[in-house]
């Protein structure tokens, strides 16, 4: 992840590394799901792993890491409002209390 930000695009090898990371993270998710001992922390762990995968694709495959910050802004605002509304709706319907 020490790829320098810049206008040169990363190498194919770098993309393969990212893809492998994604695959490993997915495997971890499924593993966490099946390990009984992790049940109490299942939700936070899965949400974290999901967010990491999400961020990897957005930053590197979609080039947000290297591109104009405006594009990140456009995307993140949509995402931010969407997450906000999901959370508010879940709270109203009593789905966040447990």
């Amino acid at each position, binding site marked *: 992840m020490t790829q320098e930000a810049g206008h040169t695009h990363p190498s194919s090898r770098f993309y393969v590394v990212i893809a492998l990371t994604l695959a490993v993270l997915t495997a971890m998710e499924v593993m966490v799901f099946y390990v009984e001992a992790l049940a109490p922390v299942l939700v936070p762990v899965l949400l974290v792993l999901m967010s990491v995968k999400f961020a990897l694709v957005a930053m590197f495959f979609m080039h947000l890491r290297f591109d104009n910050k405006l594009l990140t802004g456009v995307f993140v605002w949509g995402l931010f409002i969407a997450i906000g509304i999901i959370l508010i709706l879940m709270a*109203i319907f009593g789905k966040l209390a447990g």
Partner: protein
Amino acid sequence: MATSEADVGGRAAGEHKQGLYSGGLWSWLTTVDHKRIGVLYFVTGLVFMLVAGLEAQAIRLQLARPEQRLLDPEFYNQLFTMHGTTMVFFAGMPLIIAFFNFIVPLQIGARDVAFPRLNAFSYWLLLFSGLFLYSSFFFGGAPDGGWFAYTPLTNRQYSPGMGMDFYVLALLLSGIGSIAGGVNFLVTIVNMRAPGMKFMRLPLFTWMALLVSILILLSFPPFTIGLVFMFFDRSFGTHFYDAAAGADPVLWQHLFWVFGHPEVYILVLPAFGVVSDVIPTFSRKPLFGYPVVVFSGILIAFLGFGVWVHHMFAVGLGPIVNAVFGGATMLVAIPTGIKIFNWIATMWGGQLRFKPAMLFAIGLLGIFTIGGLSGVMHASPPADLQQTDTYFVVAHFHYVLIGGTVFGLFAGFYYWFPKATGKMLNEGLGKAHFWLTLIAMNLTFFPIHFSGLLGQPRRTFTYAEGLGLDTFNLISTIGAFLFTLAFVPLIWNLWYAWRRGRPAGPNPWDAPTIEWTTSSPPPHYNFAVIPRVDRRDPLWHPHIKPGLGWAGEAEPGGVFPRVQPDDAPEPIVMPNPSYWPLVMALGLSLATIGGLGSLPLVFTGVALALLGLFGWAFEPAEGGH
């Protein structure tokens, strides 16, 4: 979308001489010129507005006296549903988009929007979805579930007719066009500004257009999904709004108002933008507190996503939810107030010229304030328990939407009409129009504040004589007739301008923004030379004020060129006309009609739409060969 949108054909400027309003039917069907599309939107929106106005007229006639039976309740319910739906989606929004289309590229110094064909596509979808919706009158009755279409009343069980299917499908179709328009205007404003036109130099109308684009993009999808759920419930027996299956019909209300509240700002912010351009021009003073007005607009747009539950205070969501959303709603009053105060401060110390555009702008300040204050009353959830779903709320939002949106649009109409047509309107007729509208509007809507507080619920085809509300309703009905009459001077004025209007010249109002540097109406390419801008209100620098003398040292700069030359020094590349947007819109419309229950029609429509899409994508990128 797979090939370049830069569908250009290089031509010399001389080849663009065709006038804005000349050309045959084919040239209008294939046009991608933002100005022509703006005119199409305007005419379409105006016609739908007149139709919805007549529906309102019928509603008021039925309510003129208690316990009347002029209209039967089923037809009445269709009328108020269609009145609301039409005014919001097929009159208000098209008129706003009309102004975006015509004015925004001119204000930022662009030759067209970012995606001219997408722009045409949006228009055709709007037109077809509106016609589709109205065709329901001939196929078993128009929608009658209210423009808000609350479930489960609109479930198949309680609305077995086709009316609500028309509603769902028409709004899905027009929603696609709206989202496309949102993308288009956002990219246009962000990406197509003339050199030097920084964000904090944008005219306020363009600023508000940018915010509205964002609101459209973020608020229409939840509504679209809500409609998809409704469509599936009605057509395929799913259970999204079916309490018996464990669902909560209130979900629809959330999805509807997550969209519905930003929609209010979609309708009002452009009017604020118009006023923020009109008041400085006719006060001969720059806008007071430009950055504050911009940021208060941003704040209103942002808060718009966090207040939707204030439409649902009586649903019984509990004290915490109501308190949070009540508080958030009250916050909206602050940036709105800031705008009003800044507009007044703009006029303070100015040279106020009471042209019709200015009158409507001042009218907006006065009338919208009333709507805003009654809004604060039902921002308080307990007070709202008495006000929601009564005529008090009807009065409130008509003060907001007529006092805000309609007055703002009329101000914009009188302001930019000379730019759009090259002709001046008659001032006397314009003033008559203003005063009639102002009086009629108050006569219609002020009394129903009282009838609401005194116990008249909304969406009722009649009211008991014993309620004692006769006088309020009668006055309101008289006002409504006057309101219709108020359109006479407007129509007369259009006729007058067409026959005898004086030529306008590039800048009849001595306005400061760059749309006034080009001829009226502008040439096909808008600007023979792309202007360069080095400040806000560039045409007021240096301070040459005919009739008013010099106000200060002449400063160089402002905008170059100050007046656009007749001929372009270099060949101008403009987008080619295209019929593919029309084909694609027709395809989607056919598929929509098929959604009423004909699978073959759906497939035909989708095939046609795909044909349109591929034709569009693979049109020769260079038109010259």
